[in-house]
């Protein structure tokens, strides 16, 4: 049963390549526009519980109230506190690009100054000896001419010493 011809009979190799075009929505669209045009990271606010969300949310998860009122948005960060992180030392296939993850790849859960919820983004530092929970970090934003209005306009978070 282990012969090569048998193996070929019982396997069908197939790759599905499925293109998508996702909508970011009104709130995130506005967030990305501000990031692209002015290089500013904004948080919006839930009118019920008062929490500032960054990344902004259209609807508060807890109160189910709409929080899109633009005049209530405030700039947050770019400095913040690292809450926790992971560090990939093995590569995996990325579903959005079909490419392999470039390792080492560290991702931090960051609470930006002024925000009440966390966001996750890449860390510049990849030495686990040097990454400590609750250390201070700062978002590095691309120069204006390189910004495209997506999450990669933030390059990564760098460690800062205050």
């Amino acid at each position: 049963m282990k012969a090569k011809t048998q193996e070929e009979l019982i396997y069908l190799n197939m790759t599905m390549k499925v293109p998508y075009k996702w909508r970011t929505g009104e709130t995130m669209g506005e967030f990305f526009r501000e990031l692209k045009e002015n290089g500013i990271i904004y948080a919006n606010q839930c009118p019920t519980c008062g929490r500032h969300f960054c990344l902004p949310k259209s609807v508060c998860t807890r109160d189910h109230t709409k929080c899109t009122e633009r005049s209530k948005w405030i700039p947050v960060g770019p400095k913040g506190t690292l809450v926790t992180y992971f560090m990939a030392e093995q590569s995996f296939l990325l579903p959005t690009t079909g490419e392999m993850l470039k390792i080492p790849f560290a991702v931090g859960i960051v609470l930006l100054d002024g925000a009440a919820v966390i966001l996750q983004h890449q860390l510049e530092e990849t030495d686990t000896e040097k990454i400590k929970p609750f250390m201070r970090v700062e978002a590095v934003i691309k120069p204006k001419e390189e910004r495209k209005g997506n999450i990669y306009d933030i390059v990564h978070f760098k460690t800062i010493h205050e």
Partner: protein
Amino acid sequence: MANRVAIVGIGQTTHSGRRPYVNDGELIYDAVTKALADADLSINDMESVMSGNMDLFEGHHLNDAMLNLYSGAAGKPGFKMNTGGTVGSMMAIQGWYHVASGLFDLVLVIGWEKHDEGLVTPAISTITDPAVDRPFLVGAIGGLATVSVAYMQRSGCKLEHAAMVRANASQAAARNPNAHMREIYSVEEVMNARMVMYPLNLLMCCPTSLGATALILASESKAKKICKKPVWMKDHVTVHVEYGGAQFGIGEKRWTSHMEAGAKLFKRNNITKPMVETQVFEMYDPMAFAIPMWLEDFLICEPNEGWKLVEKGALKLEGEYPVSPSGGVLCTNSIGDSAILRVAEAALQIRGDAGEHQVTREVKQALASGFGGSYWSDLLLLSKTKD
């Protein structure tokens, strides 16, 4: 008031990393026929047959439609479930809803997955928002690594404790003929495994397995007539929470879906000492920090005490509070099957039918959990007696 529901039939396939001569339907058929044989019933006795898995793992959308001849669902009412890691526990809970409603007397529920057919991590990464989170989530393992770092930070738990958990699990799985990874590892061997996603090394992550589990659920009147050892589904809780600072105690008191589930279930059932009033817990433990961290989160032990219980050996198969005596998800992880397998294994412990991995304490009540999606929890309480 809901009608009482009992588990009257249990069937599981053997689990492995690869089973090239079996297709999806044949895998399901294997579990279904074992459950029917266990209950001494025929597929014609089943009023509803329902299955669950995660479609993207096998790249087969709406697979329940094509697989209905293998599952026995043809011509019968039912739902398909796809809730990530909680698929299996949701299948058991969904079966419970059907029978508890009084509309069904006998229901067959199936959880299955065949991870040798596709890639797990890229499929899991698609659960997040493509515009903001997806580039920074590396499957379930990335998220689980972040909560592990946070747990070590706040509790004092060390990598060595995670290695002890994995070494214990390997001892348990070696006694379970249906487990996938049955090799025995020492703490040192676990510590020396290749790092995959700091702080989780290869042995501290669950494997990718294939397998299926089927449960037959019956109403009280039916169970009394047909089953000598019914296991009663006494209660269950499902909790969904937002993924935000509360996970990590940022800006507010730490609160997770597991904490909410434990608080609700124990309050509703007047359980004040979970480690005494339940005698075994089959936990959905997808990585080695899960058992100590989540015993705390389910409010079964005090905060920062979980890893101390590991150190004492209390959670081993013959310990004072055995957790995942089957070897758990750490040794067998066919995702859509993983959480229903917890329910099945907990029920086997209550029946006294777990064989070589039967725990040494007498089991009157058992817990089983599911975990997955975007931090969702299921917690089930099973009992030998109906009240």
